[in-house]
């Protein structure tokens, strides 16, 4: 029994972790915590299912198509929901605009894709039972994304530019770095990572329009635990939450999984607002 909980928990945890990476990617260059990462996951699942399942497009083309849609949505989010409110960031208007952006995409997909969960095609059909691909695909994708990001930050100049903008946007501007362009690219990259979570986890989550809201909430818990901005925190928080939920589901029963998750979420937030690995909060006066 323990094995099933672990395998399913790690698979779901990987999806939450990737959504967490998407949160961090957007936050790093704009200091905005957005409502849209979960929707990016939904886009990955729904458009993946549509390209590959409905239009029977070859696998790689379907993958690129789903990622493409998410990148465009990421671009739209930055342009419409983030840039205009960056000037008055202390008023937290971004909460309202990103919530609006999330609701828009969710409603459009609901009308177009229908409101019942629809099947997500088997991608490679490898493995069966607990070794089925639907369990290890998200985990592989999650580690690839994490390592890919670390290499990108450490080894590439563009990655260094991202860190520069994240650390001190004004100094970066003085250095001649086009911080606006970096922010746009980061929102597109966040779109890719979010959609990757939905696409790779599609066989587990199914292509469902309301996936976005669930992933946004459950994807934020690792961020709250790990501390916004820390990818390591997102990974650890994600896997912990995945396993916790599966265990709660088995021992406590389906209904109270939400209650258990919220209890963990609220205690962590109140005890350690910055999270375990979060960065210090600037001085007030």
């Amino acid at each position, binding site marked *: 029994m323990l094995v099933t909980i672990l395998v399913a928990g790690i698979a779901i945890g990987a999806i939450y972790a990737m959504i967490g990476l998407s949160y961090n990617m957007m936050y790093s260059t704009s200091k905005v915590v957005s409502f849209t990462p979960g929707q990016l996951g939904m886009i990955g699942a729904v458009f993946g299912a549509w390209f590959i399942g409905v239009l029977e497009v070859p696998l790689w083309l379907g993958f690129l198509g789903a990622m493409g849609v998410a990148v465009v949505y990421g671009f739209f989010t930055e342009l419409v929901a983030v840039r205009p409110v960056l000037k008055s960031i202390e008023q937290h208007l971004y909460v309202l605009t990103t919530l609006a952006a999330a609701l828009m995409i969710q409603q459009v997909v609901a009308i177009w894709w229908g409101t019942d969960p629809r099947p997500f095609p088997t991608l490679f059909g490898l493995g069966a039972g607990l070794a089925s691909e639907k369990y290890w695909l998200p985990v592989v994708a999650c580690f690839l994304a994490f390592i890919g990001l670390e290499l990108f930050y450490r080894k590439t*100049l563009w990655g*260094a*530019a991202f*860190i*520069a903008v994240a*650390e*001190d946007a*004004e*100094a*970066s*501007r*003085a*250095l*001649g*770095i*086009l911080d606006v362009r970096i922010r746009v690219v980061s929102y597109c990259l966040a779109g890719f990572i979010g959609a990757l979570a939905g696409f790779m986890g599609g066989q587990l989550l199914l292509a469902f329009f309301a996936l976005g809201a669930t992933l946004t909430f459950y994807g934020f818990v690792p961020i709250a635990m790990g501390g916004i901005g820390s990818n390591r925190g997102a990974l650890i928080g994600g896997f912990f939450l995945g396993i916790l939920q599966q265990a709660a589901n088995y021992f406590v029963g389906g209904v109270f999984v939400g209650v258990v998750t919220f209890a963990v979420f609220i205690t962590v937030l109140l005890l350690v607002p910055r999270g375990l690995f979060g960065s210090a909060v600037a001085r007030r006066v």
Partner: protein
Amino acid sequence: MPTLAPERDGALLMASDLSAGYGAIRVLQQVNLSVRAGQVVALVGPNGAGKSTLLKALSGMIPKTSGTVSFGGQDITRLTTQACGRLGLVHVIEGHRVLPSLTVEENLLLAALDQPASARRARVEEAYRVFPEIAEKRHLGAGSLSGGQQQMLVIAQGIVRQPRLLLLDEPSAGLAPVLIARVLEVVAAFRTKGTAVLLVEQAVEKALHIADRVYVLVHGRIVLATDAQSARAPGVLERAYLGAAQPS
């Protein structure tokens, strides 16, 4: 003390009737200032007078409420700070703000991001030659450097960007005297290479030694603009500083 009209001809940078501030707060009021190619100009004044605000207004970091700025004959009033940088107007902001979690090398390479990849290595090596102290720490995180070394790194970043005019904001702030001398020596060397410098400096005497001209800014107004020689005469600066010079 009438404010001297800035030299019209051959001015590399010219600000005319420049006003700027933050939101409702008016900091600069009708500032006129100019810097000629290869010239080292010192900008001094009591703290809170608006020296840093003036540099930020010149380099496009903050919006200007009125007035115009031209650089190399081109109107750059509306340009972003990145665009000004590409024209050669490079602003080294105050407080040796390096990027701590990046290595020294990465800090320098970033400064050359908008240059062709092939030329970056040459620029970085050139900067190492000017500041050997940071050369051997190239692979260390910039955060682990001392205040002085960070100041050198920030100036090195300016050098990498091949400036025609370098705006330097209090390079000596918080530095030990021997390092201040080292920094000012490098600044003086710029002149020989034909790079103009607009130097904001608290250490007034030291700045006067290497500067060709001096502007004194008090409460957002230029109260004194003269060559370095006459500025060194006793009592001139004290009067400007301690309020005796009533703004017109």
